[in-house]
């Protein structure tokens, strides 16, 4: 009897129903993302209709391929606001939100701890030190426009390696030491960042660095989008291929190993990808906290722990989430603007307290 006739003979599998539910969920989240992109662009000091947003966008995209379409009745000012200011910023919010969520998911599986996020393991702080070195001393000048990203990546990787070595003992990676080591290194690196900022002797620098440490998407330009987009797509595709390994790692190192996962090699490459993604995201947006912590939890409440589902869903939720938090940052104290990282922290802290209060450290903490 062939495998397929075997399936046909058995009762309709819940598993297949789950697949259909998954398709439905991904479709609705994608729709929601599109709506979020549209409506977040309409919001701001100047009101712009959703129709104008699309007309301007499609007109510009058409122009790129030599078509003259969607010539609406929008003004040049509206055009500038949509195409040059709001659209790149909203897109970057989506990319960074998606990237941080994916990094959080991965780190939580790597260390089997639902508290892991790039902040907690010192990776963000490492990226900050690298980036501040570039800002303050003009380090890595040879890299031109990519110096900041390269510096942040190098810092993130260095922090990752340091934490990894600290947690390594006689060939095994000890999760508790990973977390404690990450916290310790994170504090040291935050100190280094502050020290560089205050002693570099440039007044404007302190302001620039402060906004950036708090995490901000203000002043995003189209040229900021390329690297994060490439890193997010490549990184997530690679992680998606590791979904089975991530599932196995979540069940413990010994179990993963007996299921055929080369745990040391997989973990090493995960460290590299996580550093790369964090570095690139931190370089463009500063250190935006809590997204990598909250979004994976919310995702697991919706779809369980299986990474084939968690990765795409968390990516979409992360993107939608950060788009709207950034809208809050833009408009709630207008005309002044608040760094978006402050809002993610204001939302993230109580979220975690709420989780603790419900006695439900979700999917991960055991009982």
């Amino acid at each position, binding site marked *: 009897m062939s*495998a*397929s006739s*075997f*399936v046909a003979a*058995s009762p309709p*599998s*819940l*598993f*297949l129903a789950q697949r259909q539910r998954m398709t439905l969920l991904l479709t609705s989240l994608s729709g929601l993302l599109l709506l979020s992109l549209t409506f977040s662009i309409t919001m701001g000091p100047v009101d712009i209709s959703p129709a104008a947003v699309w007309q301007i966008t499609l007109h510009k995209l058409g122009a790129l391929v030599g078509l003259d379409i969607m010539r609406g009745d929008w003004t040049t000012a509206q055009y500038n606001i949509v195409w040059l200011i709001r659209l790149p910023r909203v897109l970057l919010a989506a990319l960074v939100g998606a990237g941080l969520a994916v990094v959080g998911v991965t780190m939580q599986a790597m260390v*089997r701890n639902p508290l892991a996020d790039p902040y907690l393991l010192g990776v963000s702080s490492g990226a900050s030190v690298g980036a501040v070195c570039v800002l303050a001393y003009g380090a890595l000048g040879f890299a031109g426009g990519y110096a900041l990203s390269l510096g942040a990546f190098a810092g993130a990787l260095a922090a990752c390696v340091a934490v990894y070595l600290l947690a390594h003992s006689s*060939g095994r990676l000890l999760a508790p030491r990973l977390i404690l080591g990450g916290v310790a290194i994170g504090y040291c690196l935050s100190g280094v960042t502050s020290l560089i900022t205050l002693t570099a002797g440039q007044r404007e620098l302190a302001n620039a660095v402060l906004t950036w440490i708090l995490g901000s998407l203000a002043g995003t330009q189209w040229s900021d989008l390329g690297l994060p987009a490439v890193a997010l797509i490549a990184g997530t595709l690679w992680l998606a*291929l*590791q979904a*089975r*390994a991530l*599932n*196995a790692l*979540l*069940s*413990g*190192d*010994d*179990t993963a*190993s*007996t*299921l*055929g*996962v*080369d*745990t040391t090699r997989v973990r090493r490459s995960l460290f590299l990808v996580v550093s790369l993604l964090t570095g690139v995201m931190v370089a463009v947006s500063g250190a935006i906290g809590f997204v990598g912590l909250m979004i994976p939890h919310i995702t*697991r409440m919706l779809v*369980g*722990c*299986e990474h084939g589902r968690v990765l795409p869903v968390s990516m979409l939720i992360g993107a939608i989430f950060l788009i709207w938090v950034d809208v809050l940052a833009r408009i709630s104290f207008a005309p002044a603007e608040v760094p978006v990282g402050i809002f993610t922290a204001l939302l993230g802290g109580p979220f975690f307290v709420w989780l603790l209060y419900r006695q439900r450290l*979700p*999917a*991960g903490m*055991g*009982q």
Partner: protein
Amino acid sequence: MKLQTQALCWQSAAAYIVRDVSLHVAEGELVGLIGPNGSGKSTLLRMIYRVLQPTSGGVTADGHDIWRLSARDNARRMAVLAQEDGSEFGFSAREVVLMGRTPHKTPFERDSEADLALVDQALRRVGATHLADRTFATLSGGEKQRVLIARALTQQAGLLVLDEPTNHLDVRYQFEIMNLIRSLGTSAIAALHELHIAAHYCDRLYLLQAGQIVAHGTPAQVLTAETIAAAYRVRAHVHLHPHSGKPRIDFLPDDPL
């Protein structure tokens, strides 16, 4: 599947934890590993299932040195039920069983209908179909073991390695799990805590004490009053069951050694 260990040693900084252990499991055999707490059973098993690299000595599965195989190739030869199984996360039982397919899939393959059919089949085999969509972490000890055995079945390995599969189970479930393992007919090696279980189910036993094998053979040969007194420091009366010929042990805790 045949398993063989040659003069396996594992040495911590201070002392030998496992010393010079040579044992074998023949095709279709259920071999028990017994010994008091701290005698090195788990360490020995971890070397057998390729998680702990031995200080010296080697392990072969069907003649292949397991450390020269990749983790993936090894996982297609042996399936493991370890004592701590960290599946505390929110996986459903079905997802846990499906993980048994991990060593058979490349990163680019999706789970096929054949994989899902294997999962259904394995769940039926262990009588856990009704548990499929429950969260693994919420199952009882016996249910968890059955699901993990189903995972081992979907792994389609020729050797089962079990670290105290009956630990923390009520008597009824101890027998249920052992009957199930026995009924699979797969070659298996199991570290066992309860001597009556070892006596009843195993074809052969190795008795481990302070990291060394101090007795081996059929249950009747290994489980004698003398060896039990020497290894476990408890006096016992052993007689052979009139029908099965298997040893039955009456512990005599009130009698001094």
